């Protein structure tokens, strides 16, 4: 009779430990990282830089974002064709939302609603009301829609279609396409500057980032990259982040294993930071002092100090980390 008692006691102790583990002092910001190939989300405490929890998610989690107040985490479970919504404090699944087939990447309207979802397999952008899960609209776009950006005033949605090689500009008031901007091959990501005066679009296979003036929807400059010792073909820009003050832009360069630092005023590349393998997406901490890159082939994230432009640490997460969002 002794053994079961011991086991029970052990379990209780373990449960207690887990409880403590699951609810750390909620001081610092936390990064949520989607791991495409093991169907999990890693939660990284940004103060201790430790993974504090690994959450089992739907299959093939990719795009990830947070509500403006940071309370909800939205995650694309691509192979389950749904959006999962998590409470960022309890780290529990709150609800799921419709997404249309094969959602890859999405963007929230700056007000927090609706959610614009790129349906990679279906040449469509699905617009969903996050409060009641209603389908607001379906917008036909080019082949393999992926990148999604929304202007800071919420008036314009930009979707890139990877095979059509266009950035489609959509008027969010009526969900109509008002402009199609031809960019280089496999446009992956679209990001507006915080003042709304620049739209950045990365082209993975073309190896460039097009900077567009939203006043005219014309390309102002195509930024290209040269890294000594790295073949041009390996330089494949994907994720983009710009600081709120407009002083720095960071571009993840995929299999080049570098993040480029760019001056958004001159649009010149200033520096390349060596990170993990196949760097994919980027995310700032709320104070923008730290940038996190997801490195799909080395199964880790790199921590970048924004002020000194130095990579300070890499942390192992799940298999094939795809996206990252950091909430207070």
């Amino acid at each position: 009779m002794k053994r079961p008692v011991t086991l029970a006691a052990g379990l209780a102790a373990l449960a207690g430990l887990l409880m403590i583990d699951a609810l750390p002092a909620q001081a610092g910001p936390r990064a949520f990282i989607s791991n495409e190939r093991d169907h999990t989300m890693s939660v990284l405490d940004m103060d201790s830089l430790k993974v504090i929890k690994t959450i089992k998610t739907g299959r093939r989690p990719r795009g990830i974002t947070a509500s403006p107040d940071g309370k909800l985490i939205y995650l694309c479970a691509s192979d389950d064709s749904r959006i999962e919504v998590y409470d960022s404090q309890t780290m529990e699944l709150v609800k799921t939302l419709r997404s249309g087939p094969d959602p890859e990447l999405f963007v929230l309207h700056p007000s927090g609603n609706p959610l614009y979802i790129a349906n990679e397999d279906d040449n469509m952008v699905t617009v969903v009301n996050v409060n009641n899960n209603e389908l607001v609209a379906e917008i036909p776009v080019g082949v393999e829609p992926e990148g999604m950006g929304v202007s800071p005033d919420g008036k314009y949605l930009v979707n890139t279609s990877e095979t059509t090689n266009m950035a489609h500009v959509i008027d969010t008031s009526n969900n109509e396409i008002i402009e199609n901007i031809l960019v280089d091959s496999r446009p992956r990501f679209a990001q507006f500057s915080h003042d709304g005066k620049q739209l950045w679009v990365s082209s993975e296979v073309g190896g460039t980032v097009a900077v567009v003036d939203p006043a005219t929807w014309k390309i102002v400059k195509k930024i290209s990259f040269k890294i000594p010792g790295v073949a041009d073909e390996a330089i494949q820009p994907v994720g983009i982040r710009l600081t709120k003050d407009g002083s720095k832009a960071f571009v993840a360069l995929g299999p080049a294993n570098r993040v480029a630092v760019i001056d958004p005023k001159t649009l010149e590349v200033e520096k390349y930071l060596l990170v993990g393998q196949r760097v994919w997406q980027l995310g700032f901490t709320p104070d923008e002092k730290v940038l996190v890159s997801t490195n799909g082939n080395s199964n880790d994230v790199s921590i970048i100090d924004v002020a000194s432009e130095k990579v300070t640490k890499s942390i192992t997460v799940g298999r094939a980390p795809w996206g990252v969002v950091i909430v207070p």
Partner: protein
Amino acid sequence: MNWMAGAATAARLLSSRFPGSRHGTPALPPSRLLASGMLAAGLSVSCLLGLFAAPPALAQQPASPPLAAKPAATIPPEQTFNIGVVRQIPELPPWVAPLQMPPDDLGIAGAELGIRDNLTSGRFLKLDYKLTTETVPTDGDPLPVAQKLYDAGNRFILLDVPADQLLRISDAMKDSDVILLNVGAPDDRLRQEDCRANVFHIVPSRSMLTDALAQFLITKRWNNWFLMVGRTDADKLYADAVRHSAKKFGGKIVAEKVWDYGPDARATAQSEVPRGTQVGEYDMLIVADELGEFGDILPYNTWLSRPVAGTQGLMPLSWHETMENWAASQLQSRFFKTTKRLMRPLDYQFWEGVVAIGSAGIKTRNSDVKTVRDFMLGPGYDLPVFKGVAATFRGWDHQLRQPIVLAQPTNMVSLSPQEGFLHQVTPLDTLGFDKPETKCKFN
């Protein structure tokens, strides 16, 4: 068969069933139909624009599409790219392994997907793409069929015909305003001494394939090869390419044999293959058997426990059913959705051929043959082919330079060029005949 037949009817049906509203929650979203039904039916661009862009009340008026890119002043009039396909059915081998049984729409299904992809992109720029496919029996003559397609206005013609037929067609159309795209003939001579200015090669040449394999074997330090050659002329050409690759990358052919156990040795493989493969020590058995007469019975029947590569075993290919990376899974799933089967190399090559034109068209926005041709050979051209890097055409022989997949039957193993094989311009030119080695002289 004319693939466009019935499109107008389909358009009428659809536009009356879905009067434009996509702001509610329709029982069956029109865009779903767009992906599966309408584009498959080859709808004209103006219909698409009318259906989806116009406000609900105007949905049935196909006029004035507001989707087109601005500014209006720079838009040329609506352009149509007429793409023809000629596929001559190859002779069937003496036996076909059940898993290799060719589907009826082999290749053609890839061209159809290419048209759908082109249309989805082209509708934003008022570009229309039409496909007409013709199949020629094994003993038929593809030349008049190609000529007929040209006479019907097709200015871009995909050819899946034997090398000699390709040369006949090319020479007959020497002075015609046409681009021929070779999607089926891997013969090196078509890129070398028998090259033609009006032909672009989508399908990788044999030497690109064997170079891709050789790089992998050298990377693995499996340097000593036993070459087993089939009885057909094509097998001899494949073997030539293997020998050339060995020389180029430092492989050593330590033994060579011609397969002489007849066309169907399935029943006696276990006794005959061990005897036929006693050639001393080697690292890899390389088989040249393009018809598939005996290559598949070699693995596990060899005297020594050595792997098999070449036309069977570990195969260098333009594509494989199990490709997933570099967004390949998206192309695979688009293909599977409509065909309910997996995409084979020939399907992929047809898709590449059609998209090679579409990809140029979206930049030229002009279906004029010379304009498209100049663009395809120019510095601004890059074709995303779901293999990690963009594909482009070699100016000296019009071969599409692209990565080559190495796959065993149930899984992709690697992608060449392998790391470490350097080139002053692009690593892709380590595969096949590079500029300094070319024997091609156009005209």
